[in-house]
Structures are given as C-alpha cells and as structure tokens.
C-alpha cells in the first residue's frame, strides 16, 4: 500500500530555532547554561499568544514565555518553590504540574482544584517539592496544550542517583497542527476517520485473498465488518494535519544533542503531544531505561520504547562512534515522526531510518480470548449487535493468571451500556509483556511494562483494601468517549477514602490505547512482581486489555482522573474526591 509521510520540510523561522534544552552535567551541581532553562525557587511564567511558523505557514500559538516547548524548569528536591503564572490570553488558562505530588489547590485544574487563571490575572503556585526526576507541565484549560502551552520539569535529587551520566538532555516530543483544535474536534465529530488515510482498500482485500484464500480472507473480515470496526484505526489524528516536534523542532530543522565519543548521555524523554503516541529508538544504540515517570526503575536495556501521551522515560545511551545518530520517534500510526540528532558536531546531522509498516489491529486488540476460542470454537467478544467469532489460533499459557487471581472487595460503580459504547472486551487480559500494536515481533527488543521493576522494594507497601473496576468506553463512530459508558458531564465523582490502599483495574473496551492519568497520587503499577510495583503517573491501557495498579490514597481534596488524549479527555474523565 502506498504510504505517505506528511512531514513538512520547512525550517522553523521563529524563536523556536534556539529552543534546545541542555543541562550540563558537572560532578556535584548541574550548571544550567541554556537560555530556555529556568532554575531556582521562584519562577515567572507568562502564557501568551505567539506568532510561529512551524509548517511553512504562519500560525498563532499559545506559549509559555514565548516559546515551544516552554522553558524547562529545574527544581531542587526539598525546596519550596513559587511559580507566578500570568495569563495574557483572552481566555481563562491554567498550568498543571504533571506527576507532581502537591496540595490539590496547587494542581491547576480549572473547575476541580481552582477557578483557573482569568485573562490578565496572575496565579501564584507554591508547594514543597517532594520528589525528583523528569516531569512536565501543561495547560489544563480547553485545548491550549495542543497549541503550545507545555514544557519540561527536571527535579534534581537530594541524594546521588544510582547511575552515572556525562550529559543530560530533555527530549520533549509533541504534535503541532496549523488547524485550530476546535476545528479538529469538529471534524472528528463530523467524520471520525477524517484524518485516517491508511484505511482498508480493495487492494488490502485482494492481498489477503492471495495470502489466505477467499473464504479465509472473507471470514477474517467478518467480525470487523459486523462490528463496524476498522483495524487501521490506530490514531484519531495523524500526520495529515500534525507536524511532530522534538523540543519544538520539526524533523527538518532537527533538535541536536551533542556528545563526545564514549560519553554517557542521559535523555529525558517526555511525551507532551496532545494525541500522538511515539515509538522511540536510536538506530545503532541500546537505550538503558533508568526511570519511568520520574521514578527509578531497575535498569533495562532496550532497542525501542513506546512512550504514551504524558509519560516520561529517562534513558542512558553511550555512543561509541564519532557519527550522528538519529533520535527517531515515529508516531504509532506511522504517518510521521519527530526526529533529532545525537551528534558529535552541530553540523553533522543524522538521516532518518525508514518508518515501520502501518500497523493493523488484531483480535487481541479487541479483547478476544484466543485460548477460550480454540476450546469452545467461538469467541469471547461481543459487540452491540451481539456476535461470536470463530478462530483456530490458540494462545500459550496465560502468564498473568496470578494477577487475575488477586481478589479484593470490589466497590461496584455505575455502569451504562448504550449509545456511548460500541464495543465490549469480553475476555480482557493482562498484556504487560505485549509491546503493543505495530511493535510486535519487529526484531528489536522493545520495552514493555513487564520489563519495568521498581528500583526499590515495595514489599512493605500495604495490600489493597478494596478494588474498583473502570471500563474505558467510547463510540468511535460518533466520536464520544466515556468511562463505564458514562461521560464526565453525566458522572458522579469517584469517592476515594483517605488513608486507604485502593486497587484500580482498567478494562479497555475500545480499540485505542488510552493513557490514564491520576492526579495527586501515585499509580503503583502491577507489572508481575508485587515487591517491585512501579510508581507511575500515567498508565497506558492497551486496546482490549486489562491492567491494574494500586493507589495509596494520601492526598485529601478533589483531583482529576482522565485519559490524557486531549480530544478524549472531556468525556473520558472523572473527578476524584478524597475524604
């Protein structure tokens, strides 16, 4: 099939050309030598309109201190910091400190933790920094995050970190469109596959007939057709409108990270995209993952990792050759990529590798029980029409049965199956060792959640007191998103009890990855070893799958809990009240 890459090859002409973010590593103290990096205890941030040219066309962005990405903020663990945020937009604005543990009044979610920052007003955030690592900040108002209100946060640790590195770079990934976000949202509501230009064609079917024969090709299509589901439905918004950015640079202007041969380079990967999942690799180099969502993990060496929207990973690489390496971040649906160069010289640029083939969703992504199917000869998948699907495949022994066996008192939550939901995963499974659609069996070592183990023991963590189950639901045809079939506007807040240890299990009844973000408290992800629960703030729930994490409910107040895909957020959202 013909594949188009929509990367726009036009130089960035505005201020963004200088937005390299580099933190020089020195033995004791990191000295900040980049104009985009702000450090200290008091910060002044201004949200304003800024003319930009990212694609070759002039557009108006909303920015923090006039730049995309916004300035990298460097904090010190243990400091009490003050941030004065002035809103010069015509509309209400806000800044949310993503992944930061703080009093809820400082969390920056309009309508939930404060009133927002009115046009022309300044809001002063003040809180003590109780953690370290890589985080980020963004507007939590309207679609301002899409148009540029985001930046990285680096928190220097009190104690020495358990790994060494010579250079330290923030690699902030994002997506940009010259279209207004409200226009994008409108188009998705009018025609939900508007941006999808890798749909099935007659050619796809002919190829399948050639490979499998007519009857098999037809029967394989049966379920998708009956359910009115599209196996090419990977991302709602693609390179048709998006230009993918790395530290505000498009793939032709390229962000450059300098190194000297043999140096250990720490790359702080942050996915600040509104909608894009990135698959990141540096051809020729192994990446050692040392932290996930700011928290240390047992080092794991990989060729590639998928970074969901709002996640962060810290990796260390050690280039052995005097050549330019591509930091290559292809979008999950392969319609474009963000790219920069890891290079010994500012003039030596890497060439991008070929993008991988366009991925196709499988029955696994629909939450089918392949094992059960082989036994009973029919499926564990139900759609609104009601149907079963035969399959000959069988699955190897279910690896995560132990996690299914964990039983805690379940608090039942309201549930609706109606217009809001087009699909239901009948046999959702833990798929922690599944690299996900488009990354399976690609010949590279791809990071999975099963590879993530907390660097520090969690053996003494309290066992869960109770459990809640949240279904991620949606109607792709009408472009509506919800939790348990109820959109936020119609939902009651979730009640968490102060002091409890809560297990939350997600079941994804959609065909899309949803990065679920709980504000204010850590999500201790179960990745196979209860003694090594991984502290995360954003957890990808793969299509048709199930995943569980535990939350120590130690922060009173009201918090936001939502899918971090910007155009899903307003429906797939809950207010959490801790009392």
């Amino acid at each position, binding site marked *: 099939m013909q594949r188009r890459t929509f990367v726009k090859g036009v130089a960035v002409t505005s201020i963004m050309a200088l937005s390299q973010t580099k933190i020089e590593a020195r033995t004791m103290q990191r000295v900040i030598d980049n104009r985009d990096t702000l450090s200290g205890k008091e910060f002044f941030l201004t949200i304003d309109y800024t003319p930009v040219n990212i694609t070759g066309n002039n557009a108006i962005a909303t920015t923090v201190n006039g730049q995309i990405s916004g300035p990298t903020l460097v904090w010190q663990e243990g400091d009490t910091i003050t941030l004065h945020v002035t809103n010069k937009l015509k509309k209400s604005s806000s800044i949310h400190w993503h992944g930061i543990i703080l009093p809820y009044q400082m969390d920056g979610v309009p309508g939930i933790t404060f009133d927002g920052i009115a046009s022309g007003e300044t809001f002063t955030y003040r809180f003590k920094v109780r953690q370290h690592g890589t985080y980020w900040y963004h507007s939590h108002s309207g679609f301002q995050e899409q148009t540029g209100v985001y930046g990285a946060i680096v928190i220097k640790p009190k104690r020495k970190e358990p790994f060494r590195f010579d250079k330290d770079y923030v690699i902030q990934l994002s997506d940009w469109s010259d279209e207004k976000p409200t226009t994008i949202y409108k188009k998705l509501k*009018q025609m939900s596959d508007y941006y999808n230009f890798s749909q099935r064609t007659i050619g796809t079917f002919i190829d399948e007939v050639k490979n499998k024969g007519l009857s098999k090709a037809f029967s394989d299509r049966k379920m998708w057709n009956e359910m009115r589901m599209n196996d090419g439905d990977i991302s709602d918004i693609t390179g048709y409108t998006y230009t993918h950015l790395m530290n505000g640079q498009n793939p032709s202007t390229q962000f450059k990270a300098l190194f000297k041969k043999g140096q250990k380079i720490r790359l702080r990967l942050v996915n600040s995209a509104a909608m894009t999942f990135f698959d990141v690799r540096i051809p020729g180099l192994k990446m050692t993952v040392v932290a996930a969502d700011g928290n240390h993990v047992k080092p794991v060496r990989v060729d590639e990792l998928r970074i969901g929207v709002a996640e962060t990973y810290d990796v260390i690489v050690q280039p052995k050759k005097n050549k330019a390496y591509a930091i290559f971040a292809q979008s999950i649906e392969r319609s474009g990529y963000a790219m920069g160069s890891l290079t010994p010289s500012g003039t030596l640029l890497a060439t991008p590798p070929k993008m991988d083939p366009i991925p196709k969703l499988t029955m696994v992504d629909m939450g089918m029980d392949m094992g059960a199917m082989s036994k009973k000869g029919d499926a564990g998948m139900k759609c609104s029409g009601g149907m079963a699907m035969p399959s000959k495949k069988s699955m190897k022994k279910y690896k995560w049965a132990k996690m299914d066996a964990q039983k805690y008192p379940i608090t039942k939550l309201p549930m609706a199956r109606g217009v809001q939901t087009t699909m239901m995963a009948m046999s959702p499974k833990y798929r922690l060792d599944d690299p996900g659609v488009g990354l399976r069996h690609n010949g590279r070592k791809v990071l999975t959640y099963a590879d993530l183990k907390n660097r520090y023991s969690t053996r003494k963590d309290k066992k869960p007191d109770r459990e809640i189950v949240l279904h991620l639901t949606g109607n792709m*045809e009408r472009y509506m998103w919800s939790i348990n079939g109820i959109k936020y*506007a119609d939902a009651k807040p979730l009640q968490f009890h102060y002091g409890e240890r809560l297990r939350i299990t997600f079941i994804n009844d959609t065909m899309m990855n949803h990065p679920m973000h709980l504000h204010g408290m850590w999500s201790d992800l179960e990745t196979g070893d209860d003694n090594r629960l991984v502290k995360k703030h954003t957890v990808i729930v793969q299509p048709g799958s199930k995943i569980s994490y535990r939350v120590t409910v130690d922060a009173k107040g009201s918090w936001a809990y939502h899918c971090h895909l910007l155009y899903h957020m307003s429906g797939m959202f809950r207010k959490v009240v801790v009392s």
Partner: protein
Amino acid sequence: MRKIKNYCKKSLNDFCKKILLNILTVMSVNQSAYAGGADNPLLSLVVMDRLEVLNNDEKTRVWEGSARFGYDINKLYFYTAGEATADGLESSQHELVYSRAIAPFWDAQIGLAYDKNADASKTWVEIAIAGLAPYYFETRAALLVNGDGNVGLRVDAEYETLFTQKLILSSSVEADFYTKDDATLGIGSGLSTMEAGLRLRYEIKREFAPYVGLTWAKTFGNTRNYNAFNETNFLVGVRFWF
C-alpha cells in the same frame, strides 16, 4: 402597510429564533469546558452528497443533501433531494426531523416531510431510523403518512468501496413503496420506484470530491400509469460538505 409587513416578518423571525433556541436549550445537557474543551459542542454539518447532471436528453439535474445541527445525541436534520430540468422542477422531497441517538450506530427520527413537483405538493408526517448497519451499510428507512391516509416507506442504503484512500466508489440503492395511488404526486400503490447508482469520486480533499457515475431508475406497478420509465444514465457531479 409595509411597516406592518416588516413588523410581522420581524416577529416571525424572533418567534422562530426563540423556538430554535428553546429546542437547543432542551437538547443540550450539562456542558463542561474546563479540560479538553467542551465535550459536546453545538455543531453543524452540511453535506451535498449529490449535485449532478445526467447524460439524458433533458440533462436532468439532481441534488441530494442534508444539513444537521445539534449535539452528540440530539440533532435536527434537514434532508432535501430532487430533480429539475431546464423546464423547471420535476420532483423534490424535503424532510425536517428531530433525530435522537438511540443505539451506538442508530438514530431514531420524527418530523415532517414535504414533497413537491411541478403541479402539486403534499406534506407527510414521518418517523425514520438512520444509521450504520453491520458491514458498513449507511442505511435509512422512513415511514410516512399523509392526510389522504397514504402510507409510504422509503428505504435507502449506501456502501463505500475504497480503491485508494481518495478514490472511492459509492454504491447505492433506494426503493419507495406506498399504500395508495396519488395522481397529483404521480405515485402508485405498492413498489413505486427503485433507483440504484454507482458513483466513483476522487476526494481532492475530504470535503470536496468530483465524481462520475451511472444510475438506473425504474417505476413499477400503478406508478407506471402516471410516469413510466426505466432509464440508465451516465452522470457527472460533485460531492462536498462543510
């Protein structure tokens, strides 16, 4: 006199606006706009599905389109379709319905239909169901009743085949049935007309696509007493939406 006329016009306008506003207020529930924008904004969609000229002697012009206005669940729909020649209007059908999503892929609709041809017009009350059937058939079935006690059923279905991401074949079929003869509208009881079409469009962009195609239309039963035809025609047209 003119003043009064203007005044009447203005009050009528205001009245219409008020009614529309009330309907919309009732339709919208709980808008929230703090994060990720409003989840359910008031949106419109105007689709001119067919705007085409047939390659027959009369060079018949055909249109078929719809406009919708509303929220995720509740919408107002206006449908219009018809044919005209250089001599004027041949036939047309218009519908204004309130549409409510009742199932993941289906809307139930209720409203009025108005048929008009060169000589006559007729108003119907209608209920309809519209949506996406399994195997991606875009389907609509409308049941109509008019003052004469005539009951009509109008069914249409459309299927799209992608040759490439932009070259798309739309196959459609439509059939109309009535319980009574109606000489003024030129329709007979039983199966009245059937139409099938193939339209191959090229989407220059999603919103704009010229196309070429072929239609076949035939009248049946008593309808042939008023208007007997069985025609196959080539056509060219454009499809656009906004």
